């Protein structure tokens, strides 16, 4: 019984950590900069594909038999490349909708997500099929008969670190101050010598890179990755960010843990819980939004007349 409980707890931590990394990006873009970017889930899932491609190249061409270092190098390249992809998407498409009505940006970025998925499917060899993804680290240690994979602790540590890091960036560094300034008033920020477009680029880079980490974790914990995983990852990540309160960094991780908790609870306690996991997760989303429209940790918005 205790073993089972512990397994569920570990599972919960992994899921929550992965979600938090995707939710952070949503929270930064939607919450802080007020950019509507519904393709963030698809951008995040580009990460594992780049990592896979780079790793295969490394293993074949340059560093055979060095699995671990190839993986680390590939992940680093993938995170950087995905960050750049985010900047490129902002530059090509998303920034053109900055002053458009919210619905336009919403539909445009949903279409953008479809374009990203299709590009992955066509550019990656046999992209329509699921691609096996290696485990990040296979080692595990034992506590009182319970085997704990190191990767679980690693993922949780990384996501907590990212939340803390983003909090520090947002509130303690000049970059964070600029981001908040641009979010508050773009024109005044420009008068103060801030280039809004550079700030947007920086934020997109951070959000997409963090999302790529989430995507890589997602792929490695599932053991495989497919071109259309981004839809669900994006929807659940966005939900987690909204539950926590858009714009709040610690809200993102708590929202993710709450959503992952519901998911794990449903799977653990109900006979066919796995089938109903999305139902419970999204019912929770509706419930939270009805009871607390700006999320658990969001600041309520008052309308100025």
């Amino acid at each position, binding site marked *: 019984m205790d073993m089972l409980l512990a397994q569920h707890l570990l599972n919960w931590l992994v899921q929550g950590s992965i979600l938090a990394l995707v939710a952070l990006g949503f929270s930064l873009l939607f919450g802080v900069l007020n950019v509507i970017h519904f393709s963030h889930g698809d951008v995040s899932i580009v990460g594992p594909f780049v990592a896979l491609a780079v790793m295969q190249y490394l293993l074949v061409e340059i560093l055979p038999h060095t699995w671990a270092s190839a993986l680390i190098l590939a992940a680093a390249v993938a995170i950087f490349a995905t960050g750049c992809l985010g900047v490129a998407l902002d530059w090509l498409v998303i920034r053109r909708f900055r002053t458009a009505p919210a619905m336009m940006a919403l539909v445009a970025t949903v279409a953008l997500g479809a374009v990203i998925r*299709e*590009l992955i499917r066509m550019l990656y060899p046999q992209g329509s099929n699921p691609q096996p993804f290696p485990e990040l680290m296979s080692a595990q240690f034992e506590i009182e008969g319970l085997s704990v994979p190191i990767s679980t602790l690693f993922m949780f540590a990384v996501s907590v670190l990212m939340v803390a890091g983003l909090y520090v960036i947002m509130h303690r560094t000049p970059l964070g101050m600029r981001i908040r300034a641009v979010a508050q008033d773009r024109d005044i920020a420009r008068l103060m010598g801030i280039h809004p477009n550079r700030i947007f680029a920086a934020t997109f880079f951070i959000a997409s890179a963090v999302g790529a980490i989430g995507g890589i974790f997602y792929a490695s914990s599932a053991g495989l990755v497919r071109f259309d995983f981004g839809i669900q990852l994006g*929807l659940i990540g966005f939900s987690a960010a909204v539950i926590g309160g858009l714009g709040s960094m610690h809200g993102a991780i708590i929202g993710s843990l709450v959503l992952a908790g519901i998911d794990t609870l449903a799977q653990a306690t109900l006979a066919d819980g796995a089938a109903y996991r999305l139902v419970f997760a999204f019912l929770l*989303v509706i419930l939270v939004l009805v009871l607390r429209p700006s999320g658990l940790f969001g600041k309520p918005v008052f309308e100025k007349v």
Partner: protein
Amino acid sequence: MHGVDITAGPMARRQTGGVVQSVAIVAGLEIGGAALLRTFLLSDATWVVVGLLAVFGAAFAALQIRPRLEEHIAVAFREMRLFALLLGCGIVLIYPFLMQGSSYALHLLITAQLYAVLALALNFQLGSANIPNFATAASYGIGAYSSALLAIHFGISVWLTLPVAAVVATVFGFALGFPAMRTRDTYLALVTIAFGIVIHQLLNNFTWTGGPNGLAGIPAPSILGHSFNSPIILLGFRLPSQANFYYLAAALVALSIVCARLLHHSRVGLAWNALRSDELAARCQGINVVWYKMLAFGVDAFLAAFAGSIYAFYVSYIAPDNFTFLVSVTIMTMVIVGGMDNTFGVIAGAFLLILLPEKLRIFDDYRLLFVGVVVILFLLLRPQGLFPQRPRNYGDH
């Protein structure tokens, strides 16, 4: 395409071009549009499809460059309203006879018409009141499943299941509208997304909805002893059995257009437009914001359920995957591409987004990519949609 006049109100500046000219413009556009659509539907050659798209694009480029053209057309349609309407109805009625008995072309037309109804339903919310709703596919599904279940398990006449399904979906629509009242914009969008996913997952999991396999063997309707599965034979012409559903769907489109126009010109439509412009100001004017928002959800679900029922009876097999989040996104794209709050535009958007991917099956692998790119380019280059909404005008009718 279909005989709907695009006049939503006279222009401020009146131009009269003479009766003959107006008749020529109206007849030319309607017959020309129908002919283009027919060629598009019946051609298999890629270059024909691409050529027609180029014609279409050139027409819109002309409108974009010379807005006066659009005004002329609008004036002509307004002056010849009755003629435009009758000619349009005539074209819709004889259209199946021009399809050379191609059941594939009729199938495409039926699908496009059903989606036109869905897009019109969503238009009440997105276009008129600017309420994002990603749950239209859920209402569509609820309608389809309700009438299918009633017809399969209780043997209730198809015609009776239509209103019942609509009422069921409307109840769900109000149920969705109720929690939605506390949230706005992106948050409201998420509530509707969540609702749509919950409905899809429930349809996928319940045993009495057939689970992921869906429901099969939905009986075809019949009218005056004529089953909808048998071909229509009229004056020596033999139309494939799809023609039955073509006329049924056309009737539903007509009903939706009538609803849309009545609502647009009523106090309700005005209240929705007021909500869209400024919710706070609308509230200060004594408009019951909550009620009108709920009403928008209800009307959307009501019409979508009709489309769902007819879809279920037409294909006689439904599965949860016909009613996913991506279907809702497609419907929303139709409204935005066609032109928000413009009845004709929304229908044109639905036809375009259904027919285009079908005809691009030749490119198969690049189809979705192409549609995605086109949608993005569209929103960038003509953000007001194909047919922009027209300002309301009171007075000189």
